[in-house]
């Protein structure tokens, strides 16, 4: 039993750390703000939630301590991290940050110029 819990905690923590590392690689290597935000907000959120789940299982199984603040923490993180990513992306678009040269589609630009009246 203890061995299974050990492997479960190790899996969750290693997967979370790996996803954090992947997010950092994405933020370094991707070409413009929007793709970087895509990498950062999604991968970092999932990685940190994995790590928090691993921590919760650790404290529940080995120290017999049910920590409700960890559950609150990852519910809060799951709700707010995509929202902050969305807000930063919208403010970057509205303050005139250019898309990547090779990106092919910009629906919001057509909507703002009045060429496309369909609601987005």
């Amino acid at each position, binding site marked *: 039993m203890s061995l299974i819990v050990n492997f479960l905690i*190790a899996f969750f*923590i290693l997967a979370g*750390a790996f996803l954090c590392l992947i997010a*950092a690689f994405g933020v370094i290597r991707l070409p413009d703000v929007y793709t970087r935000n895509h990498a950062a907000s999604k991968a970092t959120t999932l990685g*940190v939630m994995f790590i928090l789940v691993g921590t919760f299982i650790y404290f529940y199984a080995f120290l017999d301590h049910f920590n409700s*603040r960890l559950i609150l923490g990852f519910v*809060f993180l799951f709700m707010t991290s995509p929202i902050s990513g969305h807000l*930063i992306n919208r403010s970057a678009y509205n303050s005139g*940050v250019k898309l990547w040269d090779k990106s092919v589609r910009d629906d919001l630009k057509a909507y703002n110029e009045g060429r496309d009246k369909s609601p987005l």
Partner: protein
Amino acid sequence: MLEVVIWIALLCCSLSMLGLIYRVIKGPSTADRVIALDSIGVNLIAITALFSVANKSTAFLDIILLIGILAFIGTVAFAKYLERGEIIENEPNR
């Protein structure tokens, strides 16, 4: 086994924070820097959780919620500043 795993995970989180600091320094636009700082805050949550597991102490788990809330409020304020030019708008009659 678990100690080694936790140290490896701490190393991975530190490396990712280093990469995000590179983006904060070099990022061409302000939005890049804000994204990288937000991710640094979220990584700091992970490091706090791993540190409390390594210390076998539940005293730092309040800090996780606190860092999450502060990172969210800071990012929302910065997004509003970038978009509107001011954070708290003062218009009595709109």
